[in-house]
């Protein structure tokens, strides 16, 4: 360790940071063992919470094909060891670590267990900002009285146009049986298409997991189309219910 740090003498601030990192990542604070991760392999003590990405938290590579059942099992196992309930009589710093680590665990599990949020998260880690298709962005645009910037996927142009006409009609004159039937049919076909997009996404995952970075663009494309589509389905559902 001292040899590694020898070259950093000119930057004492940085040196301190690096030392702290090395200590907390590899050395148990309680017994000094050097193999510690969440827990010290030698004495079993919980280790301090470190800023980490969600894949690393579970010891997973940054790959998208994830065994969700195994992930859940790991989530329960870690919960049984990290949860604040188990540290209510421990030292203040262990209580603090338990809170931090359990929130990381819960945030990580929530994000990774769902295929869509998992993909979005990975893209985010790779520095990709997805286009704002969210309802918030829509409302915000509305509040400012501006048209929200939206890229309508080419394949959906025609359907989206028709659907918007139908929705206008529904808002203006209510939903009669005829219109309802049309809306239900459209919703079902769009929902089926959402399902097919899942397959497209999986195909892109496979490429990514095999080291093909070009898959990023494919995933961004699928997610943007998917987000547009699910917004349509949501609007439809609102009118129907």
């Amino acid at each position, binding site marked *: 360790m001292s040899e590694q740090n020898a070259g950093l003498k000119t930057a004492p601030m940085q040196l301190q940071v690096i030392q702290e990192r090395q200590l907390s990542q590899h050395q148990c604070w309680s017994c000094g063992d050097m193999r510690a991760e969440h827990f010290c392999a030698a004495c079993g003590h919980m280790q301090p919470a470190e800023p980490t990405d969600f894949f690393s938290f579970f010891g997973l590579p940054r790959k998208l094909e994830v065994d969700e059942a195994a992930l859940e099992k790991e989530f*329960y196992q870690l*919960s*049984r060891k990290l*949860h*604040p*309930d188990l540290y*209510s*009589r421990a030292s203040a710093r262990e209580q603090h670590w338990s*809170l931090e680590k*359990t*929130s*990381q665990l*819960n*945030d990580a*599990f*929530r994000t990774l267990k769902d295929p869509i949020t998992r993909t979005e998260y990975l893209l985010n880690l790779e520095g990709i900002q997805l286009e704002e298709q969210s*309802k*918030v962005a829509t*409302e*915000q645009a509305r*509040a*400012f009285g501006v048209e929200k910037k939206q890229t309508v996927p080419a394949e959906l142009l025609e359907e989206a146009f028709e659907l918007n006409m139908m929705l206008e009609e529904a808002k203006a004159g209510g939903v009669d049986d005829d219109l309802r039937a049309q809306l239900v049919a459209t919703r079902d076909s769009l929902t089926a298409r959402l399902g097919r997009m899942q397959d497209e996404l999986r195909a892109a995952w496979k490429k990514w997991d095999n080291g093909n970075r070009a898959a990023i663009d494919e995933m961004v494309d699928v997610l943007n189309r998917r987000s547009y589509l699910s917004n349509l389905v949501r609007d439809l559902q609102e009118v129907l219910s």
Partner: protein
Amino acid sequence: MTDDKVVGIDLGTTNSLVAYMGTGPTLAHPDAPGKGVFIIPGEDGVNLVPSVVALDAENHVLVGNAARTALLTSPERAVYSVKRLMGRGVEDVQEELKLFPFQLAEDLAPGEVLRIKLGGRTYTPPEISAQILRQLKRNAERFFGGAVKQAVITVPAYFNDAQRQATKDAGRIAGLEVLRLVNEPTAASLAYGLDRKQNGTIAVYDFGGGTFDVSILKLKDGIFEVVATNGDTHLGGDDIDNLLIAVAVDDIRGDLGVDVRRYPDAVQRLRSAMIEAKIALSSSEAADVEVELPEGKLYQRRITREMLEQMIAPIVERTLGPCRRALSDAGLTAQQVDEVVLVGGSTRIPLVRREVEALFARKPHTELNPDEVVALGAAVQANILAGGSDETKDMLLLDVTPLSLGIEALGGVTAKIIHRNSTIPASATEHFTTGVEGQVSVAIHVLQGERELAKDCRSLARFDLKGIPPMPAGLPRIEVRFLIDANGILHVSAREQRSGKEAEIQVQPSYGLTDEQVENMILDSFDNAEADLAERQLIESRNEAETILTALGKGRRNAAWKMLGFSEQRKVDELEQRLRLAMSGGDHHSIRRSIDELNQATTRLAELMMDAAVGSALHGKKMDETEMEDGPSAPHPIGKAEFS
């Protein structure tokens, strides 16, 4: 030893309870049910402590049944259902106040914590709740014979951050360290799950005095994982009562021409009679109401169950929406729920049971007392937090946040950062920047709720990120971390990333007390926990001593006294003097010690008295005709407690 006992408390709208899960018999109560999980009764032997606080004529605080009695005679000096006012602002409670007899302070500003007028001063809802908690704490301390300082307190699952914070503040004011706030339906599931550890999906339908909650849980190998929760913090038995009162008030005005609202004590008598009728109608088909009114009139009415059900159907119906939303959030249909558990006093109403059964298409569980199950569950969680026992070692509760957490974005829109039903603890990190050159602070508005616009959500806090180094607009990068802890309470921390400077945060809770205010209330509260306990123990030990001395006086007049030897009599005399001396001092330990010694020295006297009593019984005399007739209700050994 007893200092580390953690009790479970159900701080209810109508009634409150304290429970404990023990691992063995207690010292003070070797025969009491110290093992297993049980409710600790009050001084009057009753498990339920009505959540009513009143002041008597000398401004002494009354809590529970005594306060409930006071409510009927001087309603302006009593407060009930204060839970409905916790964590709320004056603009939230206008509807409630029309029906409550108590009044708020006149000088309340919008957004300020409420203050209720009571006997010449004002109290915040957490201070009133603290009185109830203090009573429960006392009950537990009497039971264990030692201080109780830590507790788990339950809250409605649908309580927001401010309501949770207010509950925690109440605990602190009462001198309790609140180890955890547990959601009421989740606590109930723990009590049910304790002896039937099986896997599956359960729904807990919790319809209490003031609040309604529904939670869907997944049980797996001892892990109780809440998957979705929903509810209404303003829907409960109180609403049914208020409806019945309103109907009766109209009735009386029409039939008898009396405006009852002008007579607060008559309103309270009416309230009490209507509640009685409501309860009776859960087991019988009709109930007769009779209330004496002012102006010499009498209100008489027969209410049938059918009439009641017709009136309250819309209220019961309001509980079904949250159930459907919880199911939908959990991604389940009603048929996929394996078991349904009923909690809360309002689930005794047959109509409620029928509606729940119809919705879930199965018979709900009612094995455990719906009034007690939440407190029992809190005690189970308290046991887990205290280190666990054989029965709880595999049990772990994973709860969720009931409401989405958001921040106000441009245009008054809510940007959600932690979604509802996220397992807690949960966190989110957001980045903020400045809009103007040289701007050194950024205002952040934190919201809770599901609505799209900030004005429709609950305002949790507004705070300023201060101390940002002056930079061109848009250049600072402030990272703010929002963390919801295992109690469902929010914590915020921030730092400016470019300068590496820790930004200063001032959180102004929108409807909460500041730390300083809570500290002041703790100092303010006339009975500081420690001193209070010592003083009470002194009073109790003196009372006990008085009883023993009275009994001894009777014993001296008994024939049995002469059967004692001279030295034995001298010994008793001596110990009596010692006890009288101890009583004049202020140390309850020495009083207790003297009591024990005197008890021991008079064992033979007591036995002789008993023999004499039994002897006269054998000679055809009734027990109460013997010399023990008005025997004191003293503890062992002098007294007739053994016979009765």
